[in-house]
């Protein structure tokens, strides 16, 4: 290979999706603010020393160390994106958790945490990543409970970029009190025709809601997601059971498995 061709190759730009994913590392984060997000979750604003920014949809790992040296590490999706070293998390409290009860109930502004990230280049979205792959394809986001966190980051990045790709979010949540980023999501839906929000309540609906509370079923899924004929890219995040049920129905409804990106957080 000649020097000239090496130079040409060296200047080849990587794809937008990869360019948007900075190198990960361990960082010290200072809690800048914490507030209740839902009755069972808190929103944390972290100032992360040396944070290189992150793409929409990425996660980070939080490591807690006990006085005796015992450590526990857990993954949390990031609700924010872009070059800022201010990172937003929204953490759901697991009843028997080792890390989440501390993050939800105990942590205070000024506390410091060890974080590892940004992590993951698979469950991400960048404004120009689909344009480079041919015709623009609409994007369907499907969230179960706290699985909305990375999908909120994606929807917000879509709005900030003033991207006109049609987006639709289906968000399954127990009750109106359990909606994460409730005001922000309503504002995104009100601000742009390119973002549509569909809520499904599984335990209790608001007064006057047209459908009774209940899980998302196959027919409701078919009615509320962009049809397979429009070839949407689909992102699904939630508990393992939710994600696997939704993904299998999507395939039955004709969606291409390669066009469905999933992230399971375990749970029940």
């Amino acid at each position, binding site marked *: 290979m000649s020097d000239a061709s090496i130079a040409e190759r060296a200047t080849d730009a990587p794809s937008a999706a990869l360019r948007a994913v900075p190198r990960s590392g361990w960082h010290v984060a200072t809690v800048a603010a914490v507030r209740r997000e839902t009755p069972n979750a808190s929103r944390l604003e972290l100032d992360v020393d040396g944070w290189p920014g992150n793409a929409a949809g990425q996660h980070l790992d939080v490591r807690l160390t006990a006085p005796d040296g015992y450590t526990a590490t857990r*993954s949390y999706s990031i609700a924010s994106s872009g070059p800022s070293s201010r990172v937003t998390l929204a953490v759901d409290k697991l009843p028997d958790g080792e890390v989440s009860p501390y993050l939800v109930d105990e942590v205070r502004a000024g506390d410091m945490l060890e974080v590892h*990230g940004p*992590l*993951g280049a698979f469950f991400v979205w960048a404004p120009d990543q689909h344009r480079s792959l041919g015709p623009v394809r609409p994007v369907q986001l499907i969230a179960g409970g706290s699985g909305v966190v990375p999908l909120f980051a994606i929807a917000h990045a879509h709005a900030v970029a003033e991207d006109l790709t049609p987006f639709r979010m289906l968000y399954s949540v127990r009750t109106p009190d359990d909606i994460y980023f409730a005001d922000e999501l309503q504002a995104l839906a009100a601000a742009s025709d390119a973002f549509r929000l569909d809520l499904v309540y599984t335990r209790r609906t608001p007064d006057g809601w047209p459908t009774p509370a209940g899980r998302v079923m196959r027919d409701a899924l078919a009615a509320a997601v962009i049809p397979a004929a429009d070839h949407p890219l689909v992102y699904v995040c939630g508990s393992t059971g939710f994600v696997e049920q939704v993904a299998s129905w999507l395939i039955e409804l004709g969606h291409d498995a390669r066009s469905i990106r999933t992230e399971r*957080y375990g749970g029940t």
Partner: protein
Amino acid sequence: MQHVDGNALAGPLAEFFTFDVTIATARCNGCGTVAELARAMVYQSGPGTVVRCSSCDAVLATLVEADDRAWIGFSGMSAIEVPRV
């Protein structure tokens, strides 16, 4: 314990690899399926992490970590494709 998926490998394996392994694609030795590691099933427990093929459930990889070292096995995969950045 409920399994998760290959997205959860991003942090643990970033300790040892300079690229994001979750967007690397690998061929399962069991059934021949080629998929991103993010699409694999991941079982985490006290002793370590087992990565299984989402199509045939064969073991693709294992990860065991101790304080001062780690053991990483890729016993069930071949032909790993890594995007250059």
